[in-house]
């Protein structure tokens, strides 16, 4: 006997909990932020609840534009580096024996237990002149004298990629391990070299997974706030740093909210665009 489908409230019960959580922890805070972004800033004080669009008007400065472009650029760069390194890495892990796979995954997951503070400090020490790896290169005779690589652009990129890399692998692992091993085998039987196989068959059949991972790493690193302060110079501070400065140190919550809302809209638009491009190319390539 097939039971009747539950109707009314009973049917909604299973999704009630996530729905309430989403509303309480996301929709309401976001609504407050959106509202505050339209409040009137009171110089030297806080804000009044009068409606004002000045906060958005105040965004159009050279400084904001420069920092916005840089934030998007560094996140996109990290996404590309993480996927470029993470994809072959994950591919080789999935080709290993089960036990070796588990060991690698456990190592990666344990990296996640490190906080951004520890990671940033570790990198700044590793790239420092007094105790960093350049001392090792001097000892090996590769360099004349130890140098300092932190703070700087590449120190920041290294720190951000380090944080995002485990996520990259964990997101890529399921589709890669589900990849039918007969596909590359067939390609090689037909005469393709392992390298050609990797680039044409493996990469090609996982295009959507790669696009999804790129978006994930991009969105994940966009919010980075601590690492640019420790590993970057002021010109490498991301928009998150500026937003925090406005909100916490300048008590300018309306401007901070407007920056955050604008930032979110721009990033969502970029993510949407990437998905659109990924989709429109997908069927044509097949």
């Amino acid at each position: 006997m097939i039971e009747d489908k539950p109707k009314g409230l009973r049917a909604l019960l299973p999704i009630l909990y996530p729905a309430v959580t989403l509303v309480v922890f996301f929709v309401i805070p976001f609504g407050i932020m959106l509202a505050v972004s339209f409040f009137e800033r009171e110089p030297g004080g806080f804000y009044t609840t009068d409606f004002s669009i000045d906060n958005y008007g105040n965004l159009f400065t050279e400084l904001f534009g420069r920092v916005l472009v840089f934030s998007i650029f560094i996140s996109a760069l990290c996404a590309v580096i993480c996927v470029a390194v993470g994809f072959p890495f994950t591919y080789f892990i999935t080709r290993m024996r089960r036990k070796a796979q588990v060991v690698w995954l456990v190592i990666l997951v344990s990296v996640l237990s490190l906080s951004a503070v520890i990671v940033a400090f570790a990198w700044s020490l590793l790239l420092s002149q007094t105790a960093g790896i350049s001392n090792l290169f001097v000892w090996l005779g590769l360099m004349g004298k130890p140098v300092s690589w932190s703070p700087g652009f590449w120190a920041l990129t290294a720190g951000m990629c380090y944080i995002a890399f485990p996520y990259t692998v964990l997101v890529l692992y399921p589709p890669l391990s589900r990849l039918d091993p007969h596909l590359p085998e067939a390609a090689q039987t037909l005469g393709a070299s392992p390298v050609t196989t990797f680039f044409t068959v493996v990469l090609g059949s996982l295009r959507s997974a790669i696009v999804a991972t790129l978006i994930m790493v991009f969105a994940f690193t966009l919010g980075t706030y601590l690492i640019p302060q420790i590993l970057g110079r002021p010109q490498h501070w991301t928009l998150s740093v500026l937003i925090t400065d406005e909100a916490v140190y300048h008590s300018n919550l309306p401007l901070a909210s407007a920056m955050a809302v604008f930032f979110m809209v721009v990033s969502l638009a970029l993510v949407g665009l990437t998905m659109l491009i990924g989709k429109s190319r997908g069927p044509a390539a097949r």
Partner: protein
Amino acid sequence: MSTKPRLLWSILIFCAAVAFVVQPGLAAEKTLKVGVYGGYFKDSFDKHIFPDFTKETGIKVESVAEPTGEAWLVQLEQAAKAGVAPADVNMIAQVPMLRGQKTKLWAPLDLAKIPNHKNLLPVFVHKYPDGKVDGIGAVSWYITLVSNTKVFPEAPKSWGDMWNADKKDKLGLLALVSNSFLLEVTATTYFGGTKVLDTKEGIQKVLDKLAAVKPNVKLWYRDEAQFEQALKSGEIPMGQYYHDVATLASKDHPVRSTFPKEGGVLDSGSWAVPKSSKKMEEAYVFINYMCRPDIQKKLSLKVGTSPTVKKELTGLTAEDFAAVSSDIKPIIPRYDIYTGPLSDWINQKWTEMITK
């Protein structure tokens, strides 16, 4: 099966009833919530100040860790709107003190109930524009010119040394205009005092001069630990830092703190009570206690802060005094410009200057 939940409910109700009966008994004890900067300050106060205060007055102190910056002020404002106070007495920096004045957040204090205020240096009695007192100096500290003794065997003499070509990529400076007070430092060093900061044109001139120091700055820091570690190792061998912490570090590391001839920057925190607090009487007892010369001496010796009371009252030896303060006239920050009509403009120009 059905008895189990009922049993659970009975236990819960019983516990609630016990808690309800016992609670008034607990509340009879006098308590006071004191907000102190989290970390070093709170740990030191919990260890050296609060237990003795409770022993003497019978008022139990519950210390609350405050975030630095103005996040705490935002929380106090929101709580005050709801009629509650996260802490009754709060250690508040000078810029948020002024910001809180705009919304009349601080309860006016009656000096007659704080007889020990007579011990204080005048600068440590904070007032509303109409003359009502809203804050009493809690702790004060100096920001000075610090250097690594191995990299720079000779101590610097002036803030102006930071502009010298041999300091290229060697300085660590605080990242925010309102906590580095570098505008005041530059104005005092090159423009004969902080008066130049009265006008937009004056501030712009000072900012331009400050921009010239940028090639020498390796790190604009928000996190103190990061600079301290780099200073000790010599990675970043010079910069501005807190005199108390640097003096503490100089015992085991090649670090020195110098009062430049233009003076160190004297910053401070005030005790302030939000209007929403219902513990005014206990708050007066606490603030009065903190203004006692012997307590200020203890703070100087144990925590390393500069005394808020007159030097001769503390009974500190010349050496102990030098460890926390100096007789050179200090640079007093222009807190007013960070809350005045130019504040947003200053923040914007500052960020543009250092991120370029």
